[in-house]
């Protein structure tokens, strides 16, 4: 009996040590390969980390589904009201001619770009599905410049890990990792369904991240900040940072 319990004790001890060191190695590897989301702490951290890590391993380079023109929703729902601020109304009255996109942070050449400059860059259009976390969705054609192109223009520094994007609406921003920031379908969108991007859908400039839910697709973008840490950029609301679900 004592023999058996000693053996049990040793095997349990060995198994526990192996388990703990295995976890430590896994955590270090996961961090190195960018598999740990910024909201990995707290009660819901384990679920968020598993989701983000699994999807980064499976979907890092995959392309969001694109649809034929016949699938474009005849009546796309524009959620929320247009910005109520005076600054937005003034820019809108001038046809957004003075709209600027500031790019700063860990970049070699910080810039302030006009819509005309953004339109002069190579454009890409895609017909993709936009799904809100509430459950509704629509399909539209989105036209814009790939975020990766703008990031190449300003030259991101090697330590960059996230791109934070800000709306003209106060306290509205979000961020994506470099996998989504450099993804070919992540667009700074200025057109929709062969026209200008309507204000209701985020015009004049919206970031489209088609592999994530609607709330990551922030409207009325005026600033991009490239960073290696999201400290100080606590996400708005209490939603999961990664929304590939």
């Amino acid at each position, binding site marked *: 009996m004592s023999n058996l319990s000693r053996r049990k004790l040793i095997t349990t001890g060995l198994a526990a040590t192996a388990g703990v060191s295995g976890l430590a190695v896994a955590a270090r590897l996961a961090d190195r390969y960018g598999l740990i989301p910024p909201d990995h702490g707290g*009660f*819901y951290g*384990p*679920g*968020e980390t*598993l*989701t983000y890590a699994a*999807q980064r391993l*499976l*979907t890092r380079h*995959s*392309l*969001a*589904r694109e*649809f034929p023109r016949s*699938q474009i*929703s*005849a*009546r*796309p*729902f524009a*959620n929320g009201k247009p910005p109520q601020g005076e600054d937005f109304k003034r820019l809108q009255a001038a046809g957004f001619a003075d709209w600027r996109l500031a790019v700063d942070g860990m970049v070699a050449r910080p810039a302030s770009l006009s819509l005309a400059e953004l339109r002069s860059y190579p454009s890409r259009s895609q017909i993709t*599905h936009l*799904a*809100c*976390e*509430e*459950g*509704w*969705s*629509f*399909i539209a054609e989105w036209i814009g410049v790939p975020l990766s192109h703008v990031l190449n223009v300003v030259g991101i520094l090697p330590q960059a890990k996230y791109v934070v994007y800000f709306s003209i609406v106060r306290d509205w921003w979000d961020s994506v990792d470099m996998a989504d920031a450099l993804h070919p379908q992540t667009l700074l969108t200025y057109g929709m369904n062969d026209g200008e991007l309507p204000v209701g859908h985020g015009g004049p400039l919206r970031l489209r991240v*088609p*592999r*994530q*839910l609607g709330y990551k697709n922030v409207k009325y973008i005026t600033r991009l900040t490239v960073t290696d840490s999201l400290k100080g950029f606590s996400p708005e*609301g*209490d*939603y*999961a940072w990664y929304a*590939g*679900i």
Partner: protein
Amino acid sequence: MASPGLVPSLDSTYTATTNTPRHTAVVRITHWITTLCFFALLISGMEIVISHPRFYWGEAGNVLTPSLFELPIPASRSSVPTGYGYVLPDQNGWSRYLHFQAAWVAVLTGLLYTVSGLVTGHFRKYLLPAGSDLTWRALSRVLANYLRFKPRGEAEAWSYNVLQRITYLFVIFVLFPLMIWTGLAMSPAIASAFPATVTVFGGQQSARTIHFFGTVFLVLFLLVHILMVYRAGFRNRTRAMITGRAGAHKEHP
């Protein structure tokens, strides 16, 4: 984990082995973890669904398009016209976190249960119906016993009849996988890597609608399950699923 040898096989005389566990440790532990996850998923899923209690078929759908059907309840977002003059509190933040965390625990627990069930022969011994039981005659006899509220023989305290086996197999190998699959089909990232995940259902909104009906079936199963446990002796059966010991006091002739 109890070794398979400790579990009474179907042909053994159960009266002689009242100290052997009715359910193995793996079955008991995974049963209760799944129970906890199910309630977490159900409550958080209901919170998520009330933000848009409309359902669609196909790829896309929103308040400007016709719905397949609508739940006659108020919504937690003002963007949905429900006919009610008020909006419920929005609980999607913690609900979404809890939904995915509970889903992970449920999936990992289900994997443990499935692997262990295959290795120990649990499915073959306790859940796979015997070929002779799969006749209409045998099935209707079991069903008639239920409908007549006939008291069940002691043998059923140790094994499952053919209707129970079919129901459990359906829940474990059809409903649960369908819930996981339709859940994944709603993920734009998963759909980008594996488009067939969603196209087999005809679209993301179809997957959401099937996810909802899967929940309805699982809740119906839960209600019948609790009713049956109650009829068979709630204390004994619940104790058997917690401690592993089945009630023995009635079994002495």
